[in-house]
């Protein structure tokens, strides 16, 4: 992308920032973690009522001056693939769907670990999916440590950066231990992080124990944390977009302050979404309503901080027209606004259902968006004045080397149909987009395999999963063997 479309002016960003500062000084927040309380108290925040904290603006200024302006996620091979800064945008799936629409049968069912494996492999293969999350919550592993199995499955099946979710801090610690085993130690992981933890926070004003613990753990280790307070307009915050965003952003600033107090320069990724509201007619939490799009991105650009944004979700229950349209509009607008890590491709039913077919469609849309937003080269070669002059009014361009040299720069679809009518019937049997996308998924699964983990590393990872099992006093399940992922 060239540049970003700013939904808010600089002045409006300043207003929102000042509003968040006022919330922090006047209203204050609650922190449910002793270490965080001690850190902010020592730094000069006012603590009353045990855990109610009011922050002076200077603590925020200080944190904003030390938080890194850019964070680069690497792949499993240690290559820098996602520089989170400026107008760079990267798309990927969402996490933890409770249902899957099986691309083979169209059936909506509970996902199993094999679905996590397959989703990861599909993301690994799809060119425009830049990172991986565990799209599904597997029902066939012990639920309280499902996060360990998800993480193990992702390590085995992709080399792309992994954005992960865990329930408790112990799960986060285990995930980092596994990632260190893969990277070759704590220093290697810090220097070339290929995983990042997505932390949800109750609201801008309530910071739950797990969220703070994870933040402190990751900041201490110098690893990227995505610290994301969520405000649902009309219920946990004002229904107006400005108020909702000011409130969640107050929570974002709290996360920044705490992380920087723990370790100056610790990498934090802030939300590139906010100001959303509950659907007050159906009571469903929508993922892709149009109203607040671009506001949080503008604010993150104002702070010049890396952000975790949204793109590619739909509220539809099926892979249908609504799903395509919502996902496409959402991805386009969020890309134009310059979101960095854009998650939730393949999400349906407000994050409760996921579909690999939908994911493949999203991939196609992203490739379209990339071409539509690419900087345009104007040069002697692309203006082609000599070629035009050579051909003149009476010739044509089909046989020119210039044409063959550049023709493949244009966007060509993989899934979208551009055949003539008979070609569409003959080649594809007159199929719909969703049918073609499902076939693409099947083809990937039949052919694509990423570079496997080395046996020693796989074993080290497996031991961490087994340890989590043992800590619960249970016999390990079969999937803990690295071999089942091959």
């Amino acid at each position: 992308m060239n540049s970003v479309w700013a939904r808010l002016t600089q002045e409006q960003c300043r207003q929102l920032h000042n509003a968040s500062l006022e919330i922090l000084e006047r209203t204050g927040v609650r922190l449910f973690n002793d270490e965080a309380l001690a850190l902010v108290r020592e730094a000069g925040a006012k603590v009353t009522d045990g855990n109610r904290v009011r922050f002076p603006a200077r603590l925020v200024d200080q944190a904003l001056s030390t938080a890194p302006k850019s964070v680069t996620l690497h792949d499993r091979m240690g290559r820098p693939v996602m520089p989170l800064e400026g107008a760079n945008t990267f798309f990927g799936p969402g996490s933890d769907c409770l249902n899957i629409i099986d691309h083979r049968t169209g059936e909506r069912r509970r996902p199993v670990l094999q679905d996590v494996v397959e989703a990861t492999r599909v993301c690994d293969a799809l060119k425009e999916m830049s990172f991986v999350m565990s799209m599904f919550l597997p029902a066939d592993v012990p639920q309280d440590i499902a996060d360990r199995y998800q993480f193990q499955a992702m390590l085995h099946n992709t080399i792309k950066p992994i954005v992960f979710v865990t329930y408790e801090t112990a799960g986060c610690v285990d995930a980092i231990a596994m990632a260190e085993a893969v990277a070759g130690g704590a220093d290697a992981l810090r220097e070339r992080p290929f995983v990042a933890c997505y932390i949800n926070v109750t609201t801008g004003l309530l910071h739950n124990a797990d969220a703070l613990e994870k933040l402190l753990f990751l900041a201490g280790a110098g690893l990227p944390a995505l610290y994301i307070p969520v405000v649902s307009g009309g219920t946990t915050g004002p229904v107006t977009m400005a108020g909702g965003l000011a409130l969640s952003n107050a929570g974002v600033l709290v996360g920044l302050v705490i992380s920087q107090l723990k370790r100056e320069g610790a990498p934090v990724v802030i939300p590139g979404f906010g100001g959303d509201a509950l659907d007050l007619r159906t009571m469903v939490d929508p993922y892709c309503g149009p109203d607040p799009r671009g506001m949080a991105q503008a604010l993150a650009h104002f702070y010049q901080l890396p952000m975790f944004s949204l793109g590619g979700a739909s509220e539809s229950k099926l892979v249908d027209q609504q799903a395509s349209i919502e996902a496409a509009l959402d991805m386009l607008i969020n890309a134009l606004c310059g979101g960095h890590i854009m998650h939730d491709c393949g999400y349906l039913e407000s994050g409760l259902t996921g579909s690999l077919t939908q994911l493949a469609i999203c991939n196609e849309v992203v490739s379209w968006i990339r071409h539509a937003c690419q900087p345009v080269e104007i040069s002697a070669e692309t203006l082609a004045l000599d070629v035009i002059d050579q051909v003149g009014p009476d010739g044509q361009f089909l046989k020119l080397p210039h044409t063959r040299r550049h023709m493949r720069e244009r966007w060509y679809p993989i899934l979208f149909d551009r055949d003539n009518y008979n070609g569409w019937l003959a080649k594809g049997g007159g199929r719909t987009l969703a049918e073609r996308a499902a076939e693409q998924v099947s083809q990937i699964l039949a052919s694509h395999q990423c570079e496997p983990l080395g046996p020693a590393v796989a074993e080290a990872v497996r031991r961490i999963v087994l340890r989590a099992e043992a800590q619960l006093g249970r016999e390990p399940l079969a999937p803990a063997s690295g071999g089942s992922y091959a």
Partner: protein
Amino acid sequence: MHEEQFNAMRQSIVDGAPEHASELASKALELGIAPLEAINKGFVPGLTHIGEQFRLGEVFLPDLVMAGEAMKAAVAVLEPEMQKRGTQREILGKVVLGTVKGDIHEIGKTLVSTLLSASGFQVFDLGVDVPVERFAEKAREVQADIVGVSALLTTTMQGQKSVVEALDRHGLRPKVKVIVGGAPVTRDWAEKIGADGYGQDAMAAVAIARSLLHK
């Protein structure tokens, strides 16, 4: 008789205007309208109307909630007179509600709480991350009719089962009914853990709570 008065009462509920509703209730008593008649002919039709409108998507949740608040305000005014006359106002029941231990999702639970309360239940909202025993203790303390347990995670869903077991242990069941809900929760799960009811959303929660108490 009193048609205009009844219309105004109905409208005060539709408008979600508690103060206006209680004024109209006082006025009704002055005019000699029987309190039960005021409720049934004046205020209830307003609530019924707004409920229908909500189902149709014509009004929003806060409209519905405020209609419930207006209803409560009117009933509060009429109540002493009803007691004097020995006519009973319909008390729907007491509900202890919370999001279970380990789970901080509060939005759905709070909507259930708000709508139950707006529908005339007395709700004791324990908040989020509520220890299993706390549900049982509170149920005993307030002599609850229903315990509602919300869980948004497949992990914390297990806690719903523990609440059922705790209520059993305390000898509170089957008198105290258990209803469960939250994104991963299904009717099958509710049956499996021996809960008495499941609701996919807050409207369903109210319906199931009513039906369990035959109200």
